[in-house]
């Protein structure tokens, strides 16, 4: 895994006309001016914040507070389940129940980055950082 992904900041790489068009429609939404989009099977985002914003918040929501419908996406705010760092690493790698697995779409470094981001934000303050090597060892 890992070396093959392309990092693309759309629409910066698009033709000039598309970039000009962006300014016309940029007010139509509340998102960032430039957003990273992946171009293949691997996520192009690299930092923990980028990964959380572009992936995790889809279910866990921008404030990490989770959501509830017929089932639940758990809150990650001040989350005791993040204390043992192997647990979030395992879940991001393999998924469980409503949580999809990301092991095939994220590198060891990406998974370490997003777990470390979660464990130091949203009311979590665990200072023992996960390393990419730990993630590699956790892969089945």
């Amino acid at each position, binding site marked *: *895994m890992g070396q*093959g992904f392309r990092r693309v900041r*759309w*629409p910066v*790489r*698009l*033709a000039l*006309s*598309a970039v000009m*068009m*962006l300014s*016309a*429609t*940029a007010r*139509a*939404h*509340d*998102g960032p001016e430039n*957003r*990273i*989009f*992946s*171009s*293949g*099977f*691997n*996520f*192009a985002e690299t930092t923990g914040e980028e990964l959380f*914003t*572009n*992936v*995790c*918040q*889809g*279910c866990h*929501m*921008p404030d990490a507070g989770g*959501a*509830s*419908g*017929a*089932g*639940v*996406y758990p809150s990650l705010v001040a989350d005791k389940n993040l204390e043992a760092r192997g647990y979030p690493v395992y879940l991001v790698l393999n*998924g*469980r*129940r*409503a*949580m*999809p*697995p990301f092991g*095939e*779409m994220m590198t060891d470094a990406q998974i370490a980055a997003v777990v470390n981001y979660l464990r130091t934000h949203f009311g979590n303050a665990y200072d023992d950082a996960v390393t990419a090597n730990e993630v590699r060892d956790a892969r089945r």
Partner: protein
Amino acid sequence: MQSEPVTVRRRDLLALIGTVAGSAAMYHAMTSLGLASESRYKGPIRLEGDPRGASVLVLGAGLAGMTAALELRKAGYTVQILEFNARPGGRNWTLRGGDAFTELGGHKQVCEFEDGLYLNPGPWRIPYHHRALLDYCRRLGIALEPFNQLNHNALLHSVRAFGGKPQRLRAVKADFQGQIAELLAKVTQQGKLDETVSKEDQEILLQALRSWGALDNGYGYKANLISAEFRGYTKDPGGGLTAMPEPSEPVGLSEVLKSRLWRYLRGFAHYNFQTTMFQPVGGMDMIGKAFAKEVGDLIRYNAKVTQIQQDARGVTVSYVDAKNPGAVQQVHADWCVCTIPLTILSQLPLDVSAAMKSAIDAVPYAASVKIGLQFKRRFWEEDEAIYGGISYTDLPIRQIAYPNYDYNRAGRGVLLGAYLFDGPNSYEFTAMSPAERVARAVEFGAVIHPQYKSEFENGIAVAWHRVPFVLGCAGDWSDEARAAHYNNLCQIDGRIALAGEHASALPAWQEGAILSALDAIARLHDRVVRT
């Protein structure tokens, strides 16, 4: 289709086989890998024998649940259905003007489409070999019309090929075939196949290559009226003094290969996407509504299941009002057919064996996003002669699908401005607000159709992981999970049987939901009449 893994996965291998050797070879390969077979549907189910007043509680009023309810009541059971939503159908769903949808996280969208225009956020096409679904459509009086999967005049687009200019599908297909045919004819004529192909077969092969690849008398693929009949003309045949056509210029082998646009051709060779495909006239939810005409009197809506218990005598299901969760209510029945998506079922207290519980916990749901866009006019038809079908792109929107109804009509139209299934882009679009999803779909789509800029009016976006009643698109079984858990998921556990697309070998297809329900109730009925 949008996945580009580093290692070759089974579906890529199949695509490669399909692209290089044709769909027949792929079919043989699929059969040997256990993926393709004839329909398992052998006509309406016959549940013979007296259930002696037995009762069945069905959880979920999607196609699986309503199929089970319809057939079980017909066989003499007392049937009730609990449904989370305020409507029947589940993922069989259509959004029209005036419909409101609030996703997880609280964003509420109100569809602003003009009357008669719609988006099918979930299933949107029916293969000809989905015999069970087609049979129910016939029995329930649902009008069908063709769904164009393959439109030769739709576009194939890569930001990294042809200077980012979209290509006509017919030209890519003709050039890919023509260049391969010319190459193979050359090799054949040079005697390089002498050791593997008999002289007689080489003669036939050359004829076939000429026919298949639109080659000329000298086995060349060139700009002439032969290739133009496949790839199209610079100037179409006309009438009177200016009638004579002018051929178009084929693209060379290297450019065709490097463009990688050939990879999109696989979609049309795949068994599940071969013509003829269908859609219900007026929207996919016509199917759910027709089922509800039959079993609607059995459905309790807005019922959020909170616990499923069973003992030797029966099943007890607890639920609360989905909109005003208050007092817990309970329903008892002798048996239960549970079609609740595994994303949700895995979170409920549930009395089943450890093996079934492990199976329920083991199936993640695919991410998927669909975005419907309304335009002031049907520019894809008026300006570009694209009537239905799908354009493919490597932009994050991946597909633009044109409506397969109201062809050639003046006025507004709604197209599918993005269809993401699995892969990073699905998650990236899910993580946005609905307004940003729509705006991004317009930005990217305008690269392919510049008319977007002046013609766009409004849009609606459904990201399936944010859909409150399912928390994902569909069961995304890995080969390992299927080997370890599938049989355990489908076994009747005490008095509980599971059904739904997740309990089928056709995940994400309505046919899978119906076939799983029929299989489950046949086994359940057998158990009832034999005890």
